[in-house]
């Protein structure tokens, strides 16, 4: 890489990193305000307002909030069930906040898992996500096909005794590409998804289809190719008997020959990563 290209890249990445940090700050701020009785809808609105106050006008998708066994998508059959409901938070309940704001043209897509008070099962799930973060990065660097990596994540989950819950997402994806979005004054969305971003995904899908790759990272044939350079929002999601946990953050894939440079997490200073480090220090 010439330094000019590197400089340009890092300016780009900084933009993405800033919005990702902002989103995680939002998640932590909202999580701190969650109390027994708060509904999913209220939690979603709190995320929206917090980010709006900080300049977010467009979304890849509007904020979601899932409480209790909805964190594991128990009995989810249709996509509408992803939308926030009037389910109320209770002591000991797990929750997930998931949001994808667009800020200054940069997109983030994050997932934050927490629980209200003590929940040993939830703690265990969160701790076990660490192995997935390591596995994903390692295998992307090895340039394994996305489908194979997906299957390896699956196998690790099964070994851990968990169910794969990202399979419940549209197209069963564990990740999707994110891109810069043109800033518009109006930012309409369809079913919670920003039209600008959907356009980006659609055009990627069309181009990718011609060249044999897809912006969606799935268990299917169309993911039978090595990772494409770009930014991937990766979201492994574990479920265990009515409790779910995930993280979601951006993995940067480049065409560098140097394995370290060929793929890396956009930011390692995130709540779940810090938590693992703290646990290790405490142990």
């Amino acid at each position, binding site marked *: 890489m010439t330094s000019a290209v590197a400089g340009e890249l890092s300016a780009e990445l900084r933009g993405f990193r800033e919005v990702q940090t902002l989103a995680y700050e939002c998640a932590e701020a909202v999580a701190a305000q969650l109390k027994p009785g708060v509904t999913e809808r209220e939690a979603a609105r709190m995320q929206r307002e917090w980010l709006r106050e900080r300049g977010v006008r467009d979304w890849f998708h509007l904020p979601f909030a899932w409480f209790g066994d909805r964190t594991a998508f128990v009995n989810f059959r249709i996509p509408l069930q992803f939308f926030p409901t009037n389910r109320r938070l209770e002591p000991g309940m797990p929750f997930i906040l998931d949001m994808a704001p667009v800020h200054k043209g940069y997109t983030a897509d994050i997932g934050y898992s927490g629980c209200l008070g003590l929940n*040993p*099962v939830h703690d*265990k799930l969160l701790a076990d996500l660490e192995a997935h973060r390591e596995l994903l990065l390692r295998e992307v660097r090895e340039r394994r096909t996305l489908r194979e990596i997906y299957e390896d994540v699956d196998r690790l989950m*099964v*070994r*851990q*005794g968990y*169910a794969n819950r990202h399979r419940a997402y549209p197209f069963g994806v564990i990740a999707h590409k994110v891109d810069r979005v043109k800033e518009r004054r109006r930012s309409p969305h369809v079913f919670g998804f920003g039209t600008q971003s959907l356009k980006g995904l659609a055009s990627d899908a069309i181009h990718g289809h011609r060249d044999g790759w897809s912006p969606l990272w799935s268990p299917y044939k169309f993911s039978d190719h090595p990772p494409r350079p770009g930014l991937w929002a990766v979201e492994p999601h574990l479920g*265990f*008997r009515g409790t779910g946990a995930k993280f979601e953050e951006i993995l940067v894939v480049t065409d560098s020959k140097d394995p370290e440079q060929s793929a890396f997490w956009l930011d390692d200073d995130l709540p779940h990563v810090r938590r693992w480090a703290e646990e290790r220090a405490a142990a």
Partner: protein
Amino acid sequence: MSTEATTTGIKNARERRVRTGGVELCVAELGDATQPTVLLVHGYPDSKEVWTEVAERLADRFHVVLYDVRGHGRSTAPQPLRGGFTLEKLTDDFLAVADAVSPDKPVHLVGHDWGSVQAWEFVTVKRTEGRIASFTSMSGPSLDHFGHWIKKRMTRPTPRKVGQLLGQGAKSWYVYMLHTPVLPELAWRGPLGKQWPKILQRMEKVPAGDYPTSSLRSDAAHGAWLYRDNVRARMRRPRTDAYAHAPVQLITPSGDIFLSERLYDELELWAPDLVRRSIPAKHWVPRTRPDQLAAWITDFVTTNEDGIPAKDSVATGKHADRFGGQLVLVTGAGSGIGRATAFAFAEAGARVVAVDRDAESAARTAEMSRLVGAPEAWGETVDVSDEQAMEKLAEKVAEEYGIVDVLVNNAGIGLSGSFLDTSPEDWKKVLDVNLWGVIHGCRLFGKQMAERGQGGHIVNTASAAAYQPSKALPAYSTSKAAVLMLSECLRAELAGQGIGVSAICPGFVNTNITATTHFAGVDAEEEKRRQKKTSRLYGLRNYPPEKVADAILRAVVRNQAVVPVTPEARSAHLISRFMPRALRAIARLEPPL
């Protein structure tokens, strides 16, 4: 009051006599008197010796107290008998005993049959408040609750309610009999008294021994007044304030021929802090299931002493009433159906032994089982086809964890390929695990269950392949057909000992089995391809092992013989009975590989 040497039939019991309201009660005590007091009240026609087995098991941990109800055993009878057995007088007796044995601390009450009927009175009247810490009830409802139960069904008699009334009415025949004058006394002192021990053994499966005691005939004759003095009065005018002022644990034997389980449907209204337990047994559980009773009483008393609300102390999963605290051993528990089964039992509060030949996955199952509700769980690394290893396992489990209440022989491996391609080694391998593993499990743990003589259940994971022939799975299907037949034969053999046997026959379930199945007659590469292909097909079918686990718990609760799981397994099971030719045609199909 005086303390004398042992004269009751209970080993190491200290005996004393307590005077109250014109009678003298014979009271026995065991265990350390500084420990919490557990007071056991016997029923009809019994004396305190009905509790021997339970009392001895509780004596390590508690101060155990038993007494002969007035007119029973070695307590004296009131004069005259009529009017001497009212619930008010029985409550006086209880308070006198409680004050004598535990003057400063409330006692934990346990009642069986009429002992429980009385204890319901104790725990729902004002004057005992503060004297009762908890109450464990078995096979004896509150007469007041019973009265309201009947009234409710008579005033609004829907067909279902009438059915419930008639159901309990039929079970209460002896209550009407006991209301006739003199005749019951004559019967008890004559032929019935003589035959009673045999009746108990034959009908109720009560083990022979030093029970019933020699006082049976007079116990039974006097005890008839319990019914005459109380039943009619309370049925006519049940108390409206019969609310329990202590936490209640209700143990319901599902095979009780005297009491319908429906009686307790609305019990939460009367006893707000209620824990339900159910046990597959007949009426005389203190004689037939002492281990289980002692375990549940111990748990209930201990959590209560620790200040934990009863309701928060029990598991919340399905069938927790049935499996709470039981010891469940699952083989092949490191993956798929076995692991899901271990988790389902764990959620029901069972203690889980997870056995697998893969050490890491067995340990993992145990760890996660503890997280979802198992009070204890252990991982054990054993190859079920290894006879000696299984013998060691059986010894270790009995010694360290106890006698297994539910055994799930689930470990199994897949083998595919035509008969002519299947080598003798292939055959040996699949039979060693799928059949011999089950044989070892049944033999070793079944024997322990039978020797304990307190019931139990064995589940064997067969397969729909046990009755659906297929040219692609000759060896596997043969092994599973053998497991199915073994289960049916064993079921017949163990039925008399209260041990149930169930065969589970799943169809296509999304587990790891497809990735490890050996395909005979093809090279390694082709085998890999077929494993991948079948895994994807099973993945598309996507029937979760958790549903098989649910079926396994249900099979134990209902004591089902053969349980096909998944729609394809159920229809093949039907077809095998009515259109076996159709199944034979299916057997010839080429699998889509």
